[in-house]
């Protein structure tokens, strides 16, 4: 069997706010297969964001192991972690998080520039991927000149531009109306799923569950069940 893209075992995380300790994850076991779209669903505050932050390597767990393509962020130094993130992980956020003064094209090119690509090369590649998300004509627009759906498509292009093996998305459709959200998800399945790439999408929007290969249901810091879509 192929090595899983993500393999979490007994991952625990407690936030220390000084006065109180907030347990966010209480021993999470999870696998994400290469080439699959896994949705992480559950009520607000159950630890979804915390879990994908650990998977994406921007937060350290307190206990347990979380291996991404066979490597645990806990065993990397800061520089290795940054490089690993820069090469292998793509991010999509609920709030889009595009840099306002940069054009759509420049925003999409940012991960390549962080990876050390020359500006010209980066912009050329960014233009290609913008065309694939259907925004080739709007590459010179600033984020503020684009609709929410268009901004999220720019963000998806940015998450994919450097060909990462894993893309993590936190509530990518929550800021969009139903129809736009649906289009964004179609786009994700269509262009994000190539090359054995894995997607982990956090959502509490049941209307997009149909796009998932598998759905992991979380509650109170645990994964309750993982179901393969269509199979109850």
């Amino acid at each position, binding site marked *: 069997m192929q090595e899983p893209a993500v393999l979490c075992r007994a991952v625990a995380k407690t936030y220390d706010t000084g006065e109180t300790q907030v347990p966010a994850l209480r021993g999470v076991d999870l696998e994400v297969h290469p080439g699959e779209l896994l949705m992480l669903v559950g009520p607000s505050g159950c630890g979804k964001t915390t879990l994908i932050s650990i998977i*994406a390597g*921007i*937060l350290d767990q307190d206990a347990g192991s979380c291996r991404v393509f066979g490597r645990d962020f806990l065993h990397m130094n800061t520089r290795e972690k940054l490089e690993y993130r820069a090469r292998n992980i793509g*991010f999509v956020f609920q709030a889009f998080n595009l*840099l*306002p*003064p940069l054009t759509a094209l420049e925003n999409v090119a*940012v*991960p390549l520039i*962080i990876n050390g690509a020359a500006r010209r090369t980066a912009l050329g590649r960014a233009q290609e991927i913008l065309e694939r998300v259907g925004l080739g004509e709007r590459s010179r627009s600033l984020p503020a000149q684009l609709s929410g759906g268009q901004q999220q498509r720019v963000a998806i292009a940015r998450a994919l531009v450097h060909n990462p093996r894993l893309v993590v998305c936190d509530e990518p459709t929550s800021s969009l109306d139903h129809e736009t959200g649906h289009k964004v998800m179609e786009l994700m399945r269509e262009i994000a799923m190539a090359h054995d790439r894995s997607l982990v999408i956090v959502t509490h929007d049941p209307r997009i569950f149909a796009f998932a290969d598998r759905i992991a249901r979380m509650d109170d810091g645990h994964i309750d069940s993982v179901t393969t879509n269509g199979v109850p």
Partner: protein
Amino acid sequence: MYRIALQMLMGDRGKYFGIVMGLTFASLIMTQQPAIFLGLMARSYSFISDLPLPDVWVMDEKVQFVDDIKPLQDTELYRVRGVAGVDWAMPLYKGLLKARLANGMFQTCIVVGLDDATLTGGPALMLEGRLEDLRRSDGVIVDTDGAREKLAKPPATPGGKPVPLKVGDTLELNDHRAVVVGIAKVTRTFQSQPVVYTTYSRATRFAPRERKLLSFVLVKAQPGVAPQELTRRIRQATGLAAYTREQFQKITIDYFLKNTGIPINFGISVTLGFIVGAAIAGQTFYNFTQENLRHFGVLKAMGASNGTLLKMILLQAAVVGSIGYGLGVGLTSVFGYAMRHSILAFKFPWQLLLFSGAGITLICMFAALLSIVKVIRLEPAIVFKS
């Protein structure tokens, strides 16, 4: 990434202008105030620096600065002339005398009496007439600022402009008649009193009758004799104080620094400019970073290192610093140029550029440091918070 840093900086016009204005203000104050200060200080010794010919100034031991006249006996001149290594030594009278103006008012003037034979120590730049015209009876040369301002005659028609004193006009100095035979350009002195040149014998005739009238002895060293060495010899031989030109300037400036509130006043201005500029620029720059924190977080999550973000912030600080500094220094120069004919003192040596440059650098480092600490401590996990 540097380009992105600049785009972030310029993207927020309001903050960008705020930071640049703060730095411009700081650099203006930190350049212009010291320039005025240096100008004033240079005026304190302008009487000395205007006389390039003598190497050594001889005076009473107790003299503390150039306007502090403690007269010598005329015979001291001959004793100085007798010191080995003296090429020539000339008497100079310097005193404050009252001039009576045509409107009946009195105006205190600096009267300078030059050696009758050689006229050593006269103004370097004559605008009208010649220095030799002082030999004509009752002749005096008046400085042009004095002639146009404090010594000017009342307007021909009421409410009109005062009429400048010109060659051929007469004035009364301490009840003695004097005829203007020339107009000279003289560096303004500290109190900006009119300067009147005449011969030594005439000056001492104008002056109130006193036992001692000789203010300074101006000395030229023989070729090959170091002025420093000559001062030592003169001191030894005569018991008088003798200083090289540079020493006398320094003594004068030190006196003003120590005995007037001027350095403190300007020091306060400069410090205030620094603090206010640092507060505005530092605060706005910090706000700017604060508002962009989420974006820095996104860059961090996507794999940008702390080092890269640090360089981005330093670049942003350097850019606003350079622009603010350039504008401030530019405005100071424009100010100095616009005031060149006015009474305002202004001196802008290149060292001043280093001074205000260092001040602005300090402010920018301070502003950048606050922001850098914030960004380095930033957890990339904030990017998923809404």
